[in-house]
């Protein structure tokens, strides 16, 4: 059975498994949703009110909204009441937006502001929570963020459409509202994409919202309000670290170098990052230590490595692309936002070292006069690592684009030994000026995998071209025609996606390869 058939069968089985699940009355559904929210809110209120000063007991709301308390050891799955004893095991992955604050740590524990002296076990909720967290709606905790700005705590809540924020300085002080200027009205479903705080850009919040189509907005904290900051949208899309099961906050006796704010422990090794969130001005530096006292700088590190080093998705931001490539570990590539691209390599996702700059990879020339905002992009093929890089000249419909490849994925070169795939310079110019797509790329050995000149009539011809080229590749490399075809199509689709996301309008419309 083919994979496609297997997936379709699995999809049908899933659909069949819910056939007996009646939707019920819509009004009852809404009432039930409100009840869940109310119960969640009550739980939050009681946790806030009673859990301060200790973690060895729990307090929550029962099914009728009445508070219920129980012993700390009651297992979650066998007890009626909501259990909130914060053992280390349960904390794994539950503390979001961690940051150093005063003499300890602060973070969100399932949507509630909590502090800890050591950042490990003893997390305690603050007595005074932001008003919106003790309000009438529990909602989605992933839409709440916490950031430390100087000594102030800022909590941002995007659960109910319009983002709201509250800020305060000392423990016990009152929270004050921080409005979002120009935010859409309540009811517009939204989600908080990320929050960034750095000396360079200040505090920036990014949100997705729906208004006859999905849009992404950024606001920067300015004085007493968040004001629209569309120019910061790209850089602010970087995610903050979230401590997962195997990356933990380092204890307080670990003293990082001056200016290093984010310190995590993983596998007995400490890693510190520049900036509260590990990012400053679109770049990140990392330091490593085994004893918490003696620190060594390591090369610029992928900005979001702590948060999502296991995330293999291609990113639509200026953050570096990160991919895993078998025995060689992790690779990341990023641009400094100006002229050059840089590659790093890591064996474990934490300890990164620079292996090449793009002009070393191919003798690719990134002209200093023309900023290149696009980071290089990786594609890991079966046998090699491929890097895409591009440059677009300002105010001109002219692209320079390159594709390079390593000889094999097991022997990625650390200097100038990268092979050159092709050059798109003149042909991509035609995409923009004449509505013609002319892609010739990837492998000089086969004189290009695809060569199409007409965006409207080219699809079937290109598909046939894939077949022909694939036959050549299959014969030359001793692999099956289907494998060669799949590889070619995958590479081509990657290039179209890459062109599209880098602003080459029309690229995605060219190819309907469903």
């Amino acid at each position, binding site marked *: *059975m083919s*994979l*496609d058939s*297997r*997936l379709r*069968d*699995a*999809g049908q*089985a*899933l*659909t*069949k*498994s*819910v056939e*007996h*699940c*009646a*939707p*019920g009355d*819509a009004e009852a*559904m*809404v009432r*039930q*949703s*409100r*009840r*869940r929210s109310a*119960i969640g809110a009550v739980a939050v209120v009681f946790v806030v009110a009673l859990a301060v000063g200790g973690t060895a007991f729990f307090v*929550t709301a029962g*099914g*009728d909204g009445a508070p219920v308390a129980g012993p700390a050891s009651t297992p*979650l*799955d066998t*007890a*009626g009441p*909501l259990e909130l004893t914060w053992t280390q095991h349960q904390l794994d992955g*539950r503390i979001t937006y961690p940051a150093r604050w005063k003499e300890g740590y602060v973070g969100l524990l*399932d949507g509630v502001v909590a502090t800890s002296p050591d950042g490990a076990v003893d997390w305690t909720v603050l007595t005074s929570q932001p008003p919106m967290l003790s309000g009438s709606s529990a909602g*989605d*905790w*992933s839409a709440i963020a916490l950031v430390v700005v100087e000594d102030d705590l800022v909590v941002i809540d995007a659960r109910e459409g319009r983002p709201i924020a509250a800020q305060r300085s000392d423990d016990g002080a009152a929270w004050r509202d921080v409005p979002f200027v120009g935010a859409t009205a309540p009811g*517009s*479903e939204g989600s908080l994409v990320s929050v960034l705080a750095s000396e360079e850009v200040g505090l920036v919040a990014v949100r*997705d919202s*729906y208004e*006859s189509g*999905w849009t992404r907005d950024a606001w920067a904290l300015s004085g007493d309000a968040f004001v629209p900051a569309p120019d910061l949208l790209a850089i602010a899309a970087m995610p903050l670290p979230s401590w997962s099961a195997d990356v933990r906050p380092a204890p307080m006796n670990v003293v990082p170098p001056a200016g290093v704010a984010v310190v995590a422990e993983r596998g007995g090794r400490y890693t510190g990052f520049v900036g509260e969130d590990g990012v400053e001005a679109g770049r990140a530096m990392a330091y490593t230590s085994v004893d918490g006292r003696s620190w060594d700088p390591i090369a610029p590190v992928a900005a979001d490595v702590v948060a999502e080093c296991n*995330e293999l*998705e291609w990113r*639509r931001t200026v953050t570096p692309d990160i991919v895993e490539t078998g025995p060689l570990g992790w690779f990341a590539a990023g641009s400094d936002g100006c002229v050059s691209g840089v590659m790093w390599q890591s064996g474990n996702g934490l300890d990164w070292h620079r292996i090449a700059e793009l002009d070393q990879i191919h003798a690719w020339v990134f002209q200093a006069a023309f900023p290149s905002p696009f980071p290089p992009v990786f594609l890991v093929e079966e046998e090699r690592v491929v890097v895409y890089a591009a440059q677009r000249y300002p105010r001109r419909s002219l692209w320079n684009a390159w594709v390079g490849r390593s000889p094999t994925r097991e022997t990625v070169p650390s200097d100038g030994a990268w092979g050159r795939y092709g050059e798109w310079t003149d042909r991509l110019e035609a995409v923009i000026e004449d509505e013609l797509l002319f892609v010739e790329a990837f492998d000089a050995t086969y004189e290009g995998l695809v060569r199409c000149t007409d965006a409207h009539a080219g699809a079937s011809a290109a598909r046939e071209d894939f077949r022909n080229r694939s036959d050549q590749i299959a014969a030359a490399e001793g692999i099956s025609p289907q494998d060669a075809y*799949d590889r070619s*199509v*995958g590479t081509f*689709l990657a290039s*179209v*996606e890459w062109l*599209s996301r880098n602003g080459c309008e029309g690229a*995605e419309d060219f*190819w*309907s390869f469903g």
Partner: protein
Amino acid sequence: MVGVPEPFDRFYAREYRRVLALAYGLSGSRSGVEDMTQESFAAAFRDWDRVGRYGDPGAWVRRVLVNRSVSAWRRRVSELRAVLRLGGDTRARPVELDPAVDEVWGEVRRLPKRQAQVVALMYVEDRSIEDIAAILGCSTGAVKQHLFRARKRLAERLDEDGGVR
């Protein structure tokens, strides 16, 4: 935008099971998927006068479902589940999947998030590339790329019998 929204209860009755199946595929949790699904519909209900006028409000609900963190959903519903149990939650749950099918969806959930979403929308809902792109808010090229990578990885992980290597 359409002129007059369809009555919400009709929309809800028509779309519920399909969204429930999607939630089941993405979360793997039988006990929490009703809550995930209902919360997504409740979000639509809160602003139905506007959402109901969109060309495809069902796509909007699906976007809300996948746009939120599934892990956060699961964590939350596992805790609220205990509370609701006291109130006697009598809703029907999805039937437990055949182990071989469950393993397939387990592998899907191990994919990077976006890839898993694309696979679920395509194989649970039989959505077109264009539909999926509209739901996820990305280009059709991105959907194809995610799908290609997902298929490639799944092919590596699943043997011919549908089990896991």
